[in-house]
């Protein structure tokens, strides 16, 4: 055995000490690294660990229900079923069966298969929408064969439903999927692609109230995406397991769907028109009717292109809300305001007479009246709608006084109903003519204005509120369509009291004069709307026959050409005449004469309302009505 030289290790010690220091340094660096990763930078790793094992599944909130004032559901939610595929768990040999259950056509089938095959890497464990809103049959097939179809998931999602179809659709609005612009605009409000958002009407204006807040639940799963039974990763990761969704709040409207139906029935056979009914004591909107309308149920799931085109090309313009977004010449329904302007200026009284020869000559122009009324004072001039009386009045009253009175009654300004886009309408003034038609103003413009023609434009709702103000002694209300907000369990969260816009500066005696004349429009046998007399309740109001000059869209269809040249038929009024409760305005587009076309429809609606629809119908006696009226007046004054 060879002897190893016993050389001393002293020489090594120095280097061993260096090695010890290197070792300490090395371990120190590792510990430092751990401190960084596990303490300083741990937040993001904890998040990633969570994301690894906890899958967050959204729990949709239920959108608030919309009811009418009698509690009828106007907008609610129905369950709909969406089918998803997780490619990583799905077996492709099942695909033909799966496609058959879903009822996919050749094209859809190929596209879906390509999408399933196209998913790679971890994306294979993400959900892929196979089909939205499947029908009952497909649902039954999928559910029956669920165990044979691994990786197929059916998820119930609520979809908006409108039981009344197209009734009140413009006011209600509709919903559809959020788009890229919405996601930018409503950033921070937690909208997701695929979610639906209120697009118009109440659905849009009250979106934040109706929507509620989405909840979520986190489920634990492993690397292959399989959901595991509850292990307590939540506790380990210190995170919450679940956040319950907050359901949206319900709206109770002032609308009365029964009244809406009645109006709809009255409009049968008339292709287009509009109506508004307002509670004269509160400004609450009982009906907002625009015809033709669109069933919002069709819009919810995405409107087919063909239908969209049809809606756009329909000459009766179903997309337009004719109660607030379209303005019209008010025609003779405007005359009470001209009269009030004259009365207010002291330019006439009940006895002031004019002789109607059926025409009024102004220079080279001849302004015509419907009849030869002879000697006529204010009362008859309104009841029988004498233009000549108002032409003569107009010359002294002047355009600006008329405009002033119209503004007092809210015409020419937006009502502030708070839904959709609203047009302010238009009331011309001298200043306006001076600005836009310098040197072209003629007294004739005032004459046209006096009878609601020329450049005067109002909306149906504006006119209803103005007539409500006539009926209630001069209180102009802000129209109200939402009466209260309720929690899903029916608790009232917020109640909206009527809002007075302002008191009309007008002498009550003048109002009584006008109202008496309006009563005789229907009640007198010479009144323009005497055909609208009904036994059940007295109606007061004013007919209007607004001349239109609309471009004929379809010269190949003579029937349409004719109808679009016809006048708009108006009736604006209130009932009961002695103790008014509701103001109602009805417009039949291209209906012709207001007295013959609009008034009878209105009478039918009013009869329906007071015999059947009104709370506490049939109509009370005149005495009790007066008592109620006095009480209301008192309470209004107190407020």
């Amino acid at each position, binding site marked *: 055995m060879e002897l190893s030289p016993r050389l001393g290790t002293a020489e090594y010690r120095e280097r061993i000490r260096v090695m010890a220091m290197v070792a300490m340094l090395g371990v120190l660096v590792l510990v430092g690294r751990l401190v960084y990763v596990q*303490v300083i930078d741990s937040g993001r790793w*904890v998040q*990633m660990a969570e994301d*690894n094992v906890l899958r967050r599944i959204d729990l949709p909130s239920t959108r608030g229900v919309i009811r009418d004032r009698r509690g009828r559901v106007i907008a609610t939610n129905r369950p709909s079923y969406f089918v998803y595929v997780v490619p990583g768990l799905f077996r492709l040999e099942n695909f033909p069966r799966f496609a058959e259950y879903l009822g996919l056509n050749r094209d859809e089938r190929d596209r879906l298969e390509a999408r399933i095959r196209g998913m790679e890497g971890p994306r294979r464990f993400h959900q892929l929408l196979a089909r939205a809103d499947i029908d009952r049959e497909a649902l039954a097939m999928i559910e029956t064969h669920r165990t044979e179809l691994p990786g197929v998931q059916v998820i119930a999602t609520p979809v908006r439903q409108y039981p009344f179809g197209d009734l009140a659709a413009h006011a209600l609005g509709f919903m559809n999927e959020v788009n890229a612009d919405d996601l930018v605009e409503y950033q921070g409000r937690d909208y997701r692609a695929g979610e639906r958002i209120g697009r118009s009407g109440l659905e849009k204006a009250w979106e934040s109230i109706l929507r509620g807040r989405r909840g979520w639940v986190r489920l634990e799963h492993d690397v292959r995406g399989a959901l595991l039974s509850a292990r307590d990763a939540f506790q380990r990761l210190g995170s919450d397991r679940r956040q319950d969704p907050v359901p949206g709040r319900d709206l109770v409207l002032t609308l009365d769907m029964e009244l809406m139906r009645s109006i709809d029935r009255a409009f049968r056979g008339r292709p287009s028109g509009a109506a508004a009914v307002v509670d004269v004591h509160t400004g609450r909107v009982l009906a907002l009717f625009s015809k033709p309308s669109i069933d919002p149920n069709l819009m919810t799931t995405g409107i087919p292109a063909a239908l969209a085109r049809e809606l756009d090309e329909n000459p009766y313009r179903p997309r337009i809300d004719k109660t607030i977004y379209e303005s019209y010449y008010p025609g003779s329904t405007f005359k009470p305001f001209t009269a009030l302007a004259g009365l207010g200026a002291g330019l006439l009284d009940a006895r002031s007479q004019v002789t109607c020869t059926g025409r009024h000559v102004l220079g080279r122009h001849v302004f015509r009246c419907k009849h030869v009324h002879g000697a006529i004072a204010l009362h008859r001039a309104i009841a029988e709608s004498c233009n000549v009386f108002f032409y003569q009045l107009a010359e002294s009253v002047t355009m600006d006084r008329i405009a002033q009175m119209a503004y007092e009654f809210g015409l020419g300004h937006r009502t502030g109903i708070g839904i959709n886009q609203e047009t302010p309408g238009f009331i011309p003034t001298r200043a306006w003519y001076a600005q836009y038609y310098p040197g072209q103003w003629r007294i004739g413009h005032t004459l046209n204005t006096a009878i609601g023609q020329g450049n005067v434009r109002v909306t149906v709702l504006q006119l209803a509120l103005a007539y409500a103000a006539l009926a209630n002694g001069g209180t102009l209300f802000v129209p109200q369509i939402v009466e209260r907000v309720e929690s899903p369990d029916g608790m009232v969260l917020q109640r909206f009291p009527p809002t007075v816009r302002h008191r009309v500066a007008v002498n009550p005696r003048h109002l009584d004069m006008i109202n008496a004349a309006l009563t005789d429009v229907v009640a007198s046998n010479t009144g323009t709307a005497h055909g609208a007399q009904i036994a059940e309740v007295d109606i007061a109001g004013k007919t209007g026959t607004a001349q239109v000059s609309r471009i004929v869209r379809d010269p190949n269809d003579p029937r349409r050409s004719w109808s679009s040249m016809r006048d708009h038929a108006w009736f604006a009024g209130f009932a009961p005449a002695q103790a008014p409760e509701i103001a109602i305005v009805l417009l039949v587009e291209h209906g012709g004469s207001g007295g013959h076309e609009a008034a009878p429809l209105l009478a039918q609606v009013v009869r329906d309302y007071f015999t059947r629809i009104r709370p506490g119908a049939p109509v009370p006696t005149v005495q009790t009505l007066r008592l109620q009226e006095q009480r209301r007046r008192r309470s209004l004054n107190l407020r």
Partner: protein
Amino acid sequence: MARTLQPRLRDEFDWPLFLLVSVIATIGVVNLYSATSAHTGARSELYIQQIVWLAAGSVGATLVAAVDYKQYERYAYGAYIANLVALILVFLIGSSIRGTHRWIQIGSFLFQPSEFMKLSLMLAVARYVSRETRSESWKIRDLVAPGALIGVPLVLVMAQPDLGTALIVGLVATSTLLLQRIAWRSLVKLLVGGVAGSFLMWEYGLKEYQKGRLTSFLGGEHDVQGSGWQAHQSMVAIGSGRVFGQGFMRGTQNQQHFLPDTHTDFPFPVWAQEQGLLGATVVLVLYLLLILWSLRIASLARDRFGAAISVGVASLFFWQVLFNVGMVTRSLPVVGVTLPFFSYGGSSVLTILTGVGFLMGVSMRKSAL
């Protein structure tokens, strides 16, 4: 020889070494139990197998310690040659697993010669270095012979290919070699040559997946789905352990199978997620104590060879811990280095415990006979 062992075992037994190794090995088994608990079947039984290896290794270590290490010095070159032959045999009769040639099957045991080369080469280098009688520093020409000694097995291991083991084999041998004083100029020259060599190695020596691992390390986090996946999930495990950990058997990354290879290369993230910074630091400090104790044994050794093999074993601990923990904390590339006592593996356990046996043998013989 055995006659003189009895009093030594009683009087000179190195208790700190024994305790440190026992504690670390126990923690290692406990962690292996948790790391494999999410699995069913054979893998969940690995911790038992590991205990068996540890027991066998302890017997082996006892025997290794019992024999005077003069014998190892004597047979160092023989063991080295024998191991080289085994490394060559790997290519001829070895079992190919996942495209690599690392194992030779003997009965039911897969024998991994490259693992034992860590010690065989270290012994050979230790013998070579400790025999140097000249007092002046080595120049480059003095490094040619030990360079060849190290280079041949290194090339063979890399050719398997097994980058991680080659790295450790090379580093352990080099660390041992550094006990000899070498001229600074020569070291600088070697360094330059090494850089050039690395470049050549990159161009011609590395497999694509090995390059991928290196680039995924160098490229940072960008490639989360590809070759950086393991390192990424490892970071997620460690980071989410925070200070106090998620608790034993409760680490989500392991329990839900996001961590790969928790029984071989990635046991430490399991520990770090479940025991947090505190547990991880405790383990690192235990390793440091073991290393420092081993170096103390080296400096107290009765002769140069004893000191050299002690330094070799200490560096074996150090480099494996540094590279494994560095790799799982994404401080170093994923190169497949196991963590002593934590990683499952017969060859690995036997190698480490044989090293412990060397240390014990040197420690017990520190006072001259």
